[in-house]
Structure formats: structure tokens, C-alpha cells
């Protein structure tokens, strides 16, 4: 599906002048502002709520009157060890990014540039994998990973389904296909080995693809809940998303201030992905991310 959509190209404002005055002059900004409010208000509440000693659910709570406090962050850290779970999230995400880059570049290059036996079969498999839904894999993958290979509560077990991202292979293949084949032949005639051609000629030319793939692989494993939730039982191995979810489901309701600590944890979990998105938002297009995040 990633090939069917095109990147969003910004249309210049002067291309479609507003012909009518009156209503349409304020309708568009009003719709957009309403939309932005609906999307951003929960984030505002998340941050404000996490900084209030007792998150206020009344209208006046939108503008906090009392002082702000870091107590909720201390609370959630006391319950789920934020640094440890953040480290776990980082290890899983980092592993997924490294695996995706290495395997993705190699496979994408081979599929785009090299002629070898089985290339057609492999590409057919790539296309097939795109349509296999993850829900079908959940149970057998759990049986294999946890029961057969004994990878419960291990980083390898958690990172396994994310080590190779088929979307990344696709992205790399598309980028390598755009490079002129003469470039590779020239390097080969100069006596460069194929790995050398890949490393010194092809890779520097597809840097934007590297960034795209890093961004799309970051969001997926960082935000993923179901798979690490299945694989981990030990609190010390859980990524933040799982630890926070367990806290939300089991502990929060029994505390006197159920929202504060949950919201503080939410801010910590959301911040890296949102921050990365804000910095690199130009690189997030419909094409890049369409299959990057699996339910």
C-alpha cells in the first residue's frame, strides 16, 4: 500500500485563491482551529495534569491555579522505575533500528541492483508479508518465542518480530532502483567488491532513505504494547509502554490520586516519539509511515 500513495506535496497558498469573501474566509480557519484544538487539548491536559498535585477535572482545572509539582513523576518513578524501563524501551528500539537498517539495506540492495537466483521468489515473499496481518502471527509467534525458544523476558525475544521491517526493505529497494546502474558498473570495473560498492557508492546516495527508515522504525517498537506485553513477565525487563500499561490497569485505580502518576508516565512515554516527530516532521509523509506502525 505504500506504493499507491504519493508523498504529500505542499500546495502553494496562491494556487487556489479564495474567490468568495464572506463565509469561506472564516470557515476554513475555523475548521482547522477546531481540529487542532481537538488534537492538542488532550496533550495539554496530559502535561498540565502530570504537573498538578491533584489533577483537576473541572473546567477551572484547564488553567491550573495552584503551584505545579514534580511529585507525580516521583510517584510513577517509585512504582515502575522510569530509568530502567526507558532503558529497556531504548534497547528494544535501538536493536530494531540496527537490525532493520542492516538487513534492510542488504536485502533492498540485492533486490534492486543484483541479479541472483531466487530474486523473484524473494520479492514475491516481500509482497506477501505485507498482507499477512499480525493478529494471525500473535499466538504462534508467542508459542515459538516464549515456549519453544525460551526467549521470555529477554531483549532478543522482545525485539525479534521488529528486527526486520519489510516496509524498510521496500523503501531501500525503491531508493536503490532510482540510482543509475552505470554508477555501480563503473565502481565494479574499478575493481570494487560488491560490499564496497554498496558501502561507498550506493549508501551515501540514499541518506534520506536512512533517515526515513530510522524514523519509521523508531515509532513502531517504541510505541508497541502487545508484543512486549506478551513476552515479559519480569518488571525489570519491561519497556515503559508495558510497565505503564500494567500500572494503569492494576495499580492506578487503587490510589488516592489515580490520574497524576499515569499522566506523568504518559508524558515520559510520549515525549521521545513526539520530540523526534517535531524535529523531523518534514520526513513524516503518508508514504513513509503507512505500514510502519502495525496495530
Amino acid at each position: 500500500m505504500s506504493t499507491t500513495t504519493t508523498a504529500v506535496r505542499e500546495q502553494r497558498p496562491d494556487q487556489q485563491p479564495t474567490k468568495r469573501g464572506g463565509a469561506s474566509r472564516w470557515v476554513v480557519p475555523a475548521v482547522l482551529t477546531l481540529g487542532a484544538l481537538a488534537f492538542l487539548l488532550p496533550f495539554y491536559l496530559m502535561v498540565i495534569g502530570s504537573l498538578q498535585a491533584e489533577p483537576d477535572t473541572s473546567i477551572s482545572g484547564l488553567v491550573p491555579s495552584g503551584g505545579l509539582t514534580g511529585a507525580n513523576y516521583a510517584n510513577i518513578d517509585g512504582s515502575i522505575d522510569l530509568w530502567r524501563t526507558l532503558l529497556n524501551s531504548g534497547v528494544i528500539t535501538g536493536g530494531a533500528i540496527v537490525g532493520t537498517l542492516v538487513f534492510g539495506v542488504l536485502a533492498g540492495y540485492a533486490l534492486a541492483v543484483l541479479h541472483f537466483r531466487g530474486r523473484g521468489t524473494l520479492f514475491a515473499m516481500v509482497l506477501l508479508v505485507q498482507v499477512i496481518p499480525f493478529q494471525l502471527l500473535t499466538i504462534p509467534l508467542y508459542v515459538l518465542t516464549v515456549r519453544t525458544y525460551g526467549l521470555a523476558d529477554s531483549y532478543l525475544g522482545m525485539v525479534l518480530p521488529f528486527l526486520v521491517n519489510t516496509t524498510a526493505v521496500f523503501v531501500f529497494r525503491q531508493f536503490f532502483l532510482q540510482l543509475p546502474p552505470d554508477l555501480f558498473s563503473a565502481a565494479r570495473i574499478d575493481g570494487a567488491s560488491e560490499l564496497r560498492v554498496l558501502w561507498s557508492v550506493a549508501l551515501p546516495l540514499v541518506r534520506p532513505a536512512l533517515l526515513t527508515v530510522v524514523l519509521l522504525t523508531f515509532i513502531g517498537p517504541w510505541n508497541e504494547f502487545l508484543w512486549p506485553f506478551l513476552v515479559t513477565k519480569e518488571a525489570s525487563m519491561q519497556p515503559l509502554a508495558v510497565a505503564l500499561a500494567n500500572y494503569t490497569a492494576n495499580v492506578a485505580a487503587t490510589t488516592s490520586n489515580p490520574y497524576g502518576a499515569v499522566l506523568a508516565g504518559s508524558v515520559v512515554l510520549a515525549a521521545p516519539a513526539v520530540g523526534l516527530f517535531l524535529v523531523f516532521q518534514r520526513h513524516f509523509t503518508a508514504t513513509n509511515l503507512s505500514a510502519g506502525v502495525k496495530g
Partner: protein
Amino acid sequence: MSALTPARPGSASSSSASGRGSTTTSASDGRPPRRGLTGLQRAFGRHPIGVLLALPYAVFLAAVFAYPVVLAAWMSVHDWFFSAPGVEVDHPFVGFENYRQVLTDPQVHQAFLNIAVFLVINVPLTVALALVLAVALNRAARGRTFFRVAFYVPYVTASVALVGVWLFLLGGDGVVNSLLGPLAPDPSWLVNSSLAMPSIAGFVAWKQLGFFVLLYLAALQNVSKDLYEAASMDGAGRVRQFFTVTVPGVRTTTALVVILATITGANLFTEPYLLTGGGGPDGASTSPVLLMYQLGIEQGNPDTASALGIVLVVLVGLLVLLNRRLLRSES
């Protein structure tokens, strides 16, 4: 993998013929000016190293996708239960017994009904809001980047983090209810058996909307400006133009949005698990994947859970096919 099958005469040429530009590459592939092919090339194609480079990915696909899919199908027709590690146990063939159990389980019926409720609310909401926002964004004179970023932020944020805020919003003593005052539903949103699933559908629509706005925004670039001009000449106002030019113009994207939203719905797990405390009240917001988790892992019946997974995938496949069929008959 076929990449590892023994060499056959002419294998090199057959693999290169399937490749791109096979007529021109013979001159530009950098092959040493030697007559004939080396043994390796005869066995693996013109670039034998390609096999080596693609092998890790191929092995991964086989181990993490192909084998589990086969295992799921196998488990679904056998009596499969968890045993102590290293203990060999029999998994007798039971035919369609697991499927019979799944298809007659009232919990499963409820879960599919819940997903139907989800789709009936989520899909039209997603299509309508995403299209309206995309059209507005396309016409905006100022602040495009800001609005685009604002719409997209929930999409890149973890569901688990957003669930925290929505509990804060929709809880019994939450923000929404304190705004509604006496109009607040009783029992409240997430513990109300007729409002729990609609609440989840609304949450998911909100979270995913930014992505669909981007899809529509891309599609709007391809709607011909002439059509708008012609419609405008004929005296059609903005609203009329929206329904006669824009909506038909982005029809293929709408089909894609419907398919993707359907797949999202079929994958639903985190939201009912966390927003409604494991699919409550009384299973009113249980999703099939949540049920798969409960059946397969909590209750230790991965065989029936696999059967449920296959039933789910077949149903989603049928929905997607139906969608495409409808689209084709319309055009």
C-alpha cells in the same frame, strides 16, 4: 528457499531474464570480460553475492512470518496445549473441532458484534472528519505546517500514553463528565455497556485521523483544478463542489481509508484492554484479538486461539474483497 536449490543448466540466464532491463544489463553489470560464466554464477545467477546479501532477510521471513503462519494453521486443527519445556507431547489431529468451539462460543459472537459496532462508528467518522480536515488544510492560506503537525501528533504517540489522558477525560469523575454536569451518562462512558465500544471507536478515530488526513491531502493534489473551475462556472457553491467534485475525485483513497480502518479495527487490542479494563463491562468491548489473548495465553488454549485468528483473518479478507468489488461495480 529457491536461492539454495541446485544449479540447473541455464539457471543464470533465467534469473537474469526476470530482472529489470535484462537486455541492457549484460553490458553494464561489470562482469569481467571472460567468456562464459563461473561455476558460482552458473549456480546462483550473475551476482552470486546477492544470495548472501539477501539471505539474512529471507531466513528471517521464513522464521518469523512463513513458519508461524503454517504453525497457526497446523495448531488450529490439532489439540495443542502448553507443556513443560523439553517435554514431548502428542498433539492429536482434531479436524475442525477448534473451529466448531470458536464459532459456537457466545463470547466470540459478542467480540465480532463489538467489532461491527466499532467499524460502523469508526469508519464513517474517520472518512468524514479526515476528508473535511484535509480539504480545509488544502485551502488554508496560513499555518499549514502547524495544523498538519497538530493533526499528526496523536498518530505518532503511543496508545498506552494516550489511554492515560482519555481515562482522565472519560472517567466517571473525568473532564468530560464534569463539563456535562447532570447530562453525564450513567453509568459513565467506559463502564457503560452501550457506550464503551463507541467510546473506543471515537478514541481510535481521533488517534489515527492525522494519518488519514495526510492520505486525503495527497489525493486532493490529483483532483483536476479544471473540474472545480467548471463546477464554479456552472454556479456550484463550495459545498456543492465538495460533493460533486472532491468526494468522487478522492474515491480510491476513500476505499483505501476504509480498508485500512477495517484492518485497524480487526487488530484492536490495546484500547479495549486498557480503556475498558480488559474488554468490559461484561464483554461489551472485547475485541477478537483481546479474546485471542485471553483464550490462547491466559487460558492456555493456543489451538482455539489460532482457529479464532484464522476466522478473523478470513472475515477481514472478505470485507476487503467486498470493498474492492463495490468500488469496481460503481465505476
